[in-house]
Structure formats: structure tokens, C-alpha cells
């Protein structure tokens, strides 16, 4: 029996509670995700979820492999840890919409 790696799950953070991710990038990445055939999960704001210790974060942390389009990896890992559900070291790819381009983020999110 052959084993294949499971497809990474996709999570998109809108950063809706503060305008620190460039609007054009978050819109562009969302458009690319929507333009693909991929199913994905999107949340209004990971910071807001971490502030409220939202239990959904644990479901994300437990769902590796996962690709997360959000902001700085140091921050994203810190948020999950602070919410008492640290992201594992392996199987997590964090794309940074604050500094990476639309193409860089969306291609990394959607690569096979």
C-alpha cells in the first residue's frame, strides 16, 4: 500500500481588526485563493482569536500540514503559543502578507 502526504490545509487571515497588512495584498491573495479550485478556511483576525483564546486555534494547530497566509511567522507562532496551542515546528508554512507579494504568497499557498 502506498502512502501519500496529505495535502496541506489552507488558512487565510484577513487581519480585519487593524490595517497592518496592505489592503491590496490581502485582497489579491484572497482573490487568487478564490480563483483556484481549492477549499480553504478564512478567519477575520488571528490576533483577535488569540486575544480571546479561541478554541478554533487549537483545531488549526492540530491540522498539519497547514499553510497560513497571515503576517510575520514570529508573530503567528507567538499568537498560537500565547493561546496555549503552539504550532508544531514541522508541517507549518507561514506566508507573510505584510512583506511578501501577492504572487509569492498565493503561489506558496497553492503549490502542489
Amino acid at each position, binding site marked *: 500500500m502506498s502512502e501519500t502526504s*496529505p*495535502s496541506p*490545509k*489552507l*488558512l487565510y487571515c*484577513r487581519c*480585519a*481588526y*487593524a490595517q*497592518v497588512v496592505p489592503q491590496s495584498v490581502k*485582497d489579491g491573495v*484572497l*482573490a487568487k*485563493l*478564490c*480563483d483556484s*479550485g*481549492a*477549499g*480553504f*478556511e*478564512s*478567519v*477575520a*483576525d488571528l*490576533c*483577535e*482569536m*488569540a*486575544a*480571546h*483564546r*479561541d*478554541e*478554533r486555534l487549537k*483545531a*488549526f494547530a*492540530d*491540522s498539519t500540514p497547514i499553510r497560513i497566509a497571515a*503576517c*510575520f*511567522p*514570529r*508573530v503567528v507562532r*507567538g*499568537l498560537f*503559543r*500565547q493561546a496555549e496551542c503552539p504550532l508544531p515546528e514541522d508541517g507549518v508554512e507561514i506566508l507573510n502578507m*505584510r*512583506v511578501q507579494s501577492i504572487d509569492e504568497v498565493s503561489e506558496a499557498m497553492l503549490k502542489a
Partner: protein
Amino acid sequence: MITHTARPLRVVLYEGNGAIALSAQARAQVMAALLDKGYAVTRATAQGSTGFPHDDRSLLVLGQFQNQQAPDLEDATGKVTIEARDITGLGTPDIVSLVEKARGNKPMNQPGTWKPWFPVIDYSRCTNCMQCLSFCLFDVYGVSKDGKIQVQNNDNCKTNCPACSRVCPEVAIMFPKHQAGPINGEVVNEEDLRREKMKVDISSLLGGDIYARLRDRSEAAKSRFSKERSADKALEERKKCLTKMAQDGFIPAEVLASLPSPDEIMRKAEEAQARAQAALNAQPA
């Protein structure tokens, strides 16, 4: 710590079997509008599940269903309420209205009413020196059962005030909603670390020779806060530090204006320092 999570439902944009896919543009518009309102949105396609486990929130399934007839759906486990709505022919504002109507008067966290402003500790950098605990007057920080500094009351944090990150000698405190690096979580570079040396000068305004002792933490644990100093002088120095940070744009004027009375500041500062001292004393040598 804010522990309530008002997130009454999850919206599923269903484009799987039995539904007609939206145009890419319409799909992106609807998702952006719902996210900007604070909803979590799952896009489900014919390719299968998103792979994330379900939770116990109600699901509102939106789709362009055959014959414009939303199906009756029921959770096999009976735990989750599922409602489906047909959105054929509806524009984005109408779809948002439909979702809002489905939510009814159930409370929900929404953007625009509050900014998630709080420190996040990068434990890969943090040395557990307790400077942040000692510095913060608003009880944001605390110590875990195993003696680690942690953010315990993030809702006490003053919006747009990143002052504690400025006194962290290791650039370990991030504010995700801050604009500039490295406080926003950017990778810490040599220039940032060089700037930390300047923080020693700033911290000296707090009235204690605290950072010089960081080089020898076990020594610091014994003596960091034992230096005798005049309470009046310490208060004056703390004010100077805060004012300087405000002038440099590190602290919003509103935060300065909302500071407690001088007596209260002294009391809180002493309490925070005592807690920090106790935590340091408890650390293994």
C-alpha cells in the same frame, strides 16, 4: 484575560456537488465582505473538505443551489445546527444582510469596535529577565506556575502603547498590530540588537541600574531591585522615561494622560517589582 469568544456561526460558501460555483470575482467579494464583518468563512469546493475539523458552532451554508432551493441539512451527530440559504442572483450586500439576519441578535466580536492590541512574547528570545513585568503598570504580565513570564491580562494593555517592548533587552516582545519592526514581529537583525544597547540608557531613567546586571542573571536575581533609591526620585525618573517615550512617539499621549496618580504609580511599580523579584528568586541559579 478575555476568554469569551462571541462567534456564533461559521459561514460556509458551498460550491460542491449540487451547487453552481460563483464567479471568482463574486466569490472574493463575498468572502472579503463577510471577513471584514468578523465572520469566519469556509470555502467548500467539489475538491473535497478543507481538512479542518468541525467545531460546535452553527453552520450557515450559502450556495447557488439547484432550482434555487436550499437543501434541508442536519448534522449526523446532532451537535451542530446547520442552515442553508440559496444566494442565487444576490449581490454581495444582500448576502451580507442575509447572513446578519441569520445571526439575529446573537452577539459577535466585530472589527471596528476594538483593536486586538497586546504583547506577544517570542520565547525563542525571551530570557525571563522580568523587565517587562517590572515595567508595566497595568498588570498585563504575570508569572506562570513554572516561573515563566507570560501575558496574563492582555485586555489591560493600553491600545497603541508598545512601551514594554522598548524596555525588553532581547527584542522578545512583539505587538502584532504595530506598524514598525521589529516590534511588529519582523526578524530581529543586528541593527535592532545594537539599538537595544541604547535601551540601557532609556531604562536607566527608570531609576535603577537594572540592565547592566542582565549580563549576570544569577547576580541580578539577588540584587536587581534591592538598590535603595528615593521614592520621589524613582517616580520622577519613571515619568521622565514615559514622557521621553511619548515624545519619541513610542507611547500615545492618551496613555500618558490615563496614567494613575503618582502614589498609585509608585504602589503599582513596587508591586510589579516585588513580583518580578520573587519570580527571579525562584529561578534556578
